[in-house]
């Protein structure tokens, strides 16, 4: 197991290096640069700016300088937030996105497993139909509509009760976390419900369940130990990348609820062509994603003894 983990970590590092390189060159290929602004600057000022930020050097030189800096842990200073180091940006804002994302995943996973099992159990009856209807709504309504509607409902609820039931925005206390993480997790919850239902239905008809029933095992034991556990396997497979994508995709929710997360920086950096922030966040997220995948693979191997990890 240890050897396997080490091997995977090494592969992960190589993957991250590829990601960084591809992004670096893609970034420079796109027209425009962080120094172009609405009010044009004179060629002299422009030359000064380029010299200051090292953008006047040939591309490959910039690349090697940048790689050298990353190895030392220096991601540079943001071009748009002119006095903040990228390290600080990631360090201060990632925990917020992570908390939001983890809570969202928790909602999504637990909710998905529960609803999915429920619909599989009561297949084609009322609970199934209601939940399926909600799932359809959940995936066909885009996240920005959900977030806006959620916030609007909160405002109305607050005014109805005359007191702040839940804050409509901002960050800091647990109360601030509930609404945004629910909204963020909804899409994934719908997906996991569907997935869970599908795999539960397969298991319900499978041989080992029939055997268990024939053996006379108690229903609860069959349900929890055999059905739920096996049906959850695909859900776990999805969880790894889902965690990564939710943590990065929180952009809309962070915007609507005024949450100081990393997602906003990630998106705005591309629009502003803020080279250092693009590179910093991409490398960081890349590493995070790779790590998540490794973790999930290890967990998978632990849960399902049949899957041999080489």
């Amino acid at each position: 197991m240890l050897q396997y983990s080490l091997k995977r970590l090494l592969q992960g590092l190589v993957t991250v290096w590829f990601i960084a390189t591809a992004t670096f060159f893609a970034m420079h290929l796109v027209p425009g640069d962080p120094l172009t602004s609405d009010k044009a600057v004179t060629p002299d000022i422009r030359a000064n700016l380029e010299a200051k930020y090292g953008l006047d050097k040939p591309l490959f030189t910039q690349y090697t300088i940048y790689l050298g800096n990353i190895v030392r842990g220096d991601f540079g200073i943001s071009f748009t937030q002119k006095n903040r180091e990228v390290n600080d940006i990631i360090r201060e804002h990632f925990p917020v996105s992570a908390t939001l994302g983890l809570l969202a995943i928790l909602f999504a996973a637990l909710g998905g497993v529960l609803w999915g099992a429920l619909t599989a159990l009561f297949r084609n009856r009322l609970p199934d139909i209601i939940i399926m209807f909600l799932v359809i709504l959940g995936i066909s309504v885009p996240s920005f509509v959900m977030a806006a509607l959620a916030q609007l409902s909160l405002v109305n609820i607050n005014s109805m009760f005359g007191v702040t039931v839940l804050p409509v925005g901002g960050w800091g206390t647990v109360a601030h976390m509930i609404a945004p993480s629910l909204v963020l997790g909804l899409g994934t919850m719908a997906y996991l419900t569907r997935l869970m239902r599908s795999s539960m239905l397969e298991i319900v008809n499978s041989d080992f369940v029939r055997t268990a029933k024939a053996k006379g095992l108690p229903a609860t034991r069959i349900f929890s130990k055999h059905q739920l556990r096996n049906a959850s396997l695909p859900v776990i497979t999805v969880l790894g990348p889902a965690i990564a994508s939710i943590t990065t995709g929180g952009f809309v929710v962070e915007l609507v609820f005024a949450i100081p997360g990393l997602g906003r920086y990630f998106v705005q950096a591309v629009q502003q062509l803020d080279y250092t922030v693009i590179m910093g966040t991409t490398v960081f997220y890349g590493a995070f994603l790779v790590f998540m995948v490794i973790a999930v693979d290890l967990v998978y191997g632990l849960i399902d003894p049949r899957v041999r990890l080489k």
Partner: protein
Amino acid sequence: MTDVVVDESSFVRAAGRQLLLYAFLTIVGFALIMFLLDAAARLAGSNTGSTNAVDVATKSITLALAEEPPQLDSTRTTDQISGMVLGHIMEGLLRDDAQGNIVGGVAESWEMDGNGALFHLRSDASWSDGQPVTAQDFVFSWRTVVNPATASEYAFIMFFVKNGEAINQGKLPITDLGVEAIDERTLKVTFERPLTFFEKVVTFKTFLPIREDFFQQTNGRYGADADEMLYNGPFRITSWVHGASLRLDKNEHYWRRNEVRLNTIHFGYITSDANATLNFFKDGKIAQTGLSPETLSVGLEQRWNINQFQDGGVFFIEFNHRPGRLTQNLNLRKAMQLVNDPGELVNKVTKIPGYLPGSSLFPTYLDGVKDKFRREHPAPEIVPDVAAARHHLELARQELKLDKWPALTLLSGDNPISNLQAEYYQAVFKDKLGLDVKIDKQIFKQRLAKMTSGEFDLVMAGWGPDYEDLLTYGDLFASWNLNNRGRYASDEYDALVRTAQNSTDQTVRVAAFARMQELLNEDVVILPNYEKGAAYVTHKQLKGVVRRVIGSDPDYTYAWVDGAAE
């Protein structure tokens, strides 16, 4: 093969009970996690605070910012939000009062003629650490602005001061800048060329003072955090949680502190989503927010106190005058001019209150000789005339020797309003002239890149004023100006700009601007769209907020909380 012996429905019931048990355990588990998280968050202390919009007892207000101020180092600031924050925490030689007049700030009195100015600083102006603001502080900061190593994008505004441009190009040392501290409280400024409106220029944020010893000890981190700045304005930053909130408290060392009636300004939310800030306002969490045409009815329904103001931006469609472009042909431009109906655009398409239909490059709020420029020299009124437009179009087609008109490109950004306009104009040109106009949508930086390289026929453009004089708009289409993206070049226009730059007689200058306005119309350099405005709502208990076209906007330094208002 018969099915299993176990009764199916009893299985389902048992399984259902099991699920219920799991659901219950999950909820309990959640509550536990929430509790733990709450405790952890309190320890971390990154609470943005659940303050209300207006607190009468503590004389504090809560507001939202559209984004985190990117640059609080006044020598390098370029954007509006940083400018607004700086306007509250710093003060320059002169300031704008509540009525918009220019009065003394750090400078108590001053003398000025066409060649230079002498400022006498007041004795009680001090920094937030108690030390007095001296003339050397201005000399240091102004020199830092033009220093090529600083690479300040707004260095050009210092070119009004003698040798500013030469220093910025590296031709002279920074000590040659035309600013000198005669003594601790006297500042002498020499102009590059004769100037009448330096008062209007020096209120700009780039001219703010910075104390040299403090700046050096921040080691390049000046402006990065609350404790990496020294304040001489009505407020100081007491807490800055990046990306989340900014808290300003009253500066007890400010010389006018007895007139400042707010104790705290808390920027508790940072988001650019207008719907979100509207929700915060509705929830009673912030004291001011903007209104869009869609949310206007919400404001009316809630009986909010709605206000409106012109924010000074002038928006237009710019033509590409480079050789080889179809739009270089005057008749084509005239055809488009005759189907341009800014009234329809403003009243039916954008529908934002405060937008004035555009008729000139020069906006309505700028002064002429004695009255507003646009009253003394009204803009030419173009009445849309489709028949005449088609006639010009036909002339253009013959001049360009075309059988059929090819498609033209209209470059647009990712701003929803400019997209709306672009779609509207596409239909207008198609409908009335039969021209096929393709919309080229680009994101911000790519749009700028294309504008600079000239890859467009028409582009949705705009301009905001840097200082309160007609020249900030007038020189836009001088052939040497890099912001003249369409590369319009006219010797007569250039000569007029030089007159306006070099003359000290306002009558002569205004006459030059009047002729510029005529030329822009005759040569159809641009198609005016509108002068931008905005509608906004304010909390009933917040009074005295000043909105400005130029200068820090909004300005809360003259505001107060009125507990009696209901």
